[in-house]
């Protein structure tokens, strides 16, 4: 068993992760997630979907009810491997009596980084996240954005192989967000694996190689960005005169009428051709045929909208009487 898990290529390979809080909130209901080495992976989902719970399980902050799988080739929860992982939690707080430099030194020591390395790395990291002017300022005087940056630096103090970031751009201004994205791509270039939780689609879209969409404690979709968006594509056919008279026939062929256009969802060009034939035979003149690829947002809305309610909160188990 061990040698099988050792040779896995996945940086993160989670199978059947389940977690119920306080015997009634099913935060995760059997999550499977695979993250390749050296990629930026985005875990997307509405608030309450269970994203934070999943990463907390990876970092052993939360005890899962059931969980199989590996992180960096070791069984989930392995303590030694955490020395080569970095984590930025959703909220980060630091001892208020430390300066940024002391904070990095402290967390570096906890992450087993030798003192010499900690000194070398902390200054360059603080510069990297834009805190060079505040290295000797007490953390109690930091703003929310500065704390976020310090949190990021802290996650990198041990030069980790796997970096897990929970809503990394939360609390940052647009410039800060862009800097974070630049940092992430830089990490990828250095061969690191990055796991990001986010409810902000655009951000994920800009940097992630692969994504999973989590909803109500289950993975609804998982794959590369193009895999996710290619399934869901549609053609829009515009005619000079609205074809509402043909509604029934169009629907029989597999299309539909939406705000004056004929819409064919899916990638099947055959349906499109059949509808074009129909239109031509009835002397409608075709203005345009436009293939449209769904954005991640469309996929997201489609999935979340499908599920009952649109909040994404996990269902509550009926409590035993």
């Amino acid at each position, binding site marked *: 068993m061990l040698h099988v898990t050792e040779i896995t290529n996945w940086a993160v390979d989670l199978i059947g992760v389940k977690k119920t*809080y306080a015997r009634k909130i099913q935060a995760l209901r059997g999550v499977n997630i695979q993250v390749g080495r050296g990629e930026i992976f985005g875990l997307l989902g509405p608030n309450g979907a269970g994203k934070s719970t999943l990463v*907390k399980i990876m*970092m*052993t*902050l*939360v*005890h899962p009810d059931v969980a199989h799988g590996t992180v960096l080739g070791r069984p989930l929860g392995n*303590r*030694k*491997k*955490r*020395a080569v*992982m970095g*984590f930025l*939690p*959703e*909220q*980060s*707080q*630091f*001892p*208020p*009596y*430390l300066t940024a430099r002391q904070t990095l030194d*402290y*967390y570096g*020591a*906890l*992450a*087993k980084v030798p003192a010499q390395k900690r000194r070398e790395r902390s200054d360059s990291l603080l510069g990297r996240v834009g805190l060079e002017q505040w290295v000797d300022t007490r953390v109690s005087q930091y703003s929310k954005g500065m704390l976020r940056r310090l*949190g990021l630096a*802290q996650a990198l103090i041990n030069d980790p192989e796997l970096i897990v970031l929970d809503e990394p751009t939360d609390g940052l201004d647009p410039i800060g967000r862009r800097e974070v994205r630049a940092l992430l791509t830089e990490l990828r270039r250095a061969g690191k694996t990055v796991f990001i939780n986010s409810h902000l689609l655009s951000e994920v879209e800009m940097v992630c190689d692969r994504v999973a969409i989590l909803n109500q404690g289950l993975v609804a979709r998982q794959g590369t960005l193009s895999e996710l968006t290619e399934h869901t594509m549609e053609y829009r056919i515009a005619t000079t005169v609205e074809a509402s008279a043909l509604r029934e026939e169009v629907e029989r062929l597999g299309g539909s009428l939406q705000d004056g256009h004929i819409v064919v969802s899916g990638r099947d060009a055959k349906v499109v051709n059949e509808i074009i034939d129909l239109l031509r035979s009835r002397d409608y003149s075709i203005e345009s045929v436009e293939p449209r690829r769904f954005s991640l947002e469309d996929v997201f809305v489609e999935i979340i909208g499908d599920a009952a309610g649109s909040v994404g909160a996990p269902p509550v188990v009926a409590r035993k009487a």
Partner: protein
Amino acid sequence: MQLLAIVIDSFRDAKDRKIFWIMIIISVMIATSMACVGFNDQGVDVLFGTWTHATPEWSAGSEELAANVAAVAIEVIADNYLGWIGMVMALVATAAVFPSLMEHGHIDITASKPLARWQLFLGRYLGGMVFMLVQAVVFVGLTFLVMGVRWGCWTWSYFWLVPLIVLMFSYLFAFSALFGVWTRRSMTSLMLTMMAWFVLFSVQSTHALLEANPEWDKTGVWRRTAAGLHWVVPKTQDITVIAGKLVGAKSIVEVIPLEEAAETEREREEFRHAVEGQRNLVAELNPGASIGSSLAAELAIILLAVRLFSRRDF
């Protein structure tokens, strides 16, 4: 290295609070006021010569007088600083050691580092003890110096108070850690710790009373129950007695001629009885058994706290 980093951080956490300095200031104030008292050929000299009180009743001269005063000072200190004042202040100062570790956003980072939860707990626990150790060294060191320099009494055995203060604190800090881990709030855990201390006090006092007055409990059921409970709890009351034993200074009753001050024979009799009782208490107490069973209780409480802490979802 990791453990050391946590211990240091935990100590810093406690040191960052004002009460750390308040405690230091109180120690300095106590030492200063002791230094205001001196002894010369005539007797007691207060505030460096501003006021001299001739003490013919101690005719043996200033040396014996100083030794007696030092003995009284040591007993007062052992009963009060070790007995409660120092403990209350240190418990207040360290009440947040665990709750602040477990704050959201802080614990998430700390617990994600490559160390086991029990190590994290242990580091914080030791940090709290280091806090008390520093305070004890400052307090005992300063008062020791005053007694030596001003009064000429270099009572080296007085330093036994340092480990005893830390030991006493550890009995109580175990409760503080348990309640801190459990409630995650420093005020609540401080209050619960004080309540636990009161329970310990009640168990020990009941035990002592029933032992001293066997006639109160004819069946012996209560006495045995109290003795059993007394055996399993951390014995905070014993520590001042042990301190008296180890330091070996004269006790107040030997120094101050209270017996002569009594007016009636009955009062004198009562006084002798009390002194006798005190002597028996000291003689009967086995420090090893008392400390050993108390540490076992402390360990049980710590293990419970570690278990709670390890199983917790953050």
